């Protein structure tokens, strides 16, 4: 993947972050038969962090 494509992936990630911030983190909390736990949502943020970190690393490598 080129640096430009990486950057684009990064931009989409930011949009996904806004989406996750609202859709998974806000809204009325209702306990269904199956409900997303706070721990599940925390894991989503950890996942996003890792994705961004690896994209940034690839960016740096590509820039070398």
């Amino acid at each position: 993947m080129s640096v430009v494509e990486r950057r684009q992936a990064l931009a989409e990630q930011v949009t996904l972050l806004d989406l996750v911030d609202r859709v998974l983190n806000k809204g009325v909390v209702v306990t269904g038969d199956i409900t997303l736990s706070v721990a599940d949502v925390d894991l989503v943020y950890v996942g996003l962090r890792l994705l961004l970190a690896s994209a940034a690393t690839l960016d740096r490598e590509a820039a070398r």
Partner: protein
Amino acid sequence: MIDAPARTAWYVYGVAEDEAALSQLAEVELIRQGRLTAVVREVSLDEYDETVLPQRLNDRDWLEQNARAHEDVLQSAAAVTAIVPLRFGVIYRSREQVGQMLHERSDEFLVTLERVRGHVELGVKVWADMQMLGRTLADGEAPSAAGAGAAYLQRRRAEQERSRELAVRCAELAEEAHVRLDAVASAAVANRPQPRELTGRSEPMLLNGAYLVRDGDDRLRREVERLAAEHAELGLEYELTGPWPPHNFAGEAQ
């Protein structure tokens, strides 16, 4: 051999009052109970079972597709009537249980619907170019003619003082922006700014606000433009997002 019955369940997107307006929505079902209507979709438990859901959430494509689908349904519902968004991933094993939930929380839903009716949510983020903002602070003391060691300590102290001043300035600017935006909104929430590891930007986020404004009311947008113009020379950048369904105003009274 008999196939096992399909394991399905009902995923709830949000709760509204006006069933007639919602009936035009595609790809969703409605469950009515009293004055309320839940917007739902029948989903396969293979996709949403609690044993697989945590793994699914870590699949970036699955997450994005399903979070967008959740948002899309709420957007189309919000375009035709007031809706209370539910958090992602609320699932019931039967339609009756969805009705039961509507019944039990009916008062709360009706109060929230009243609050968000005719409103949209707008998001405002403020980013700071710290170097530019730093240059707008008063210059520190001139270096003294003391010896090398003393000069070093003096410089260190000046740097620390400067970074404290910068942090205070950031907090003041975020506060000013939020107060001014709150003044032209029906309700306002200042969320924790997104950290740099998640935004991927080098500038820190000073404000991550959400504002409930009357649909068609232009005042918040204009206030953002004014703030952006006033703060441009300080190195601040304003970002306006939305309109969103009222995710941030769906809970208990704000």
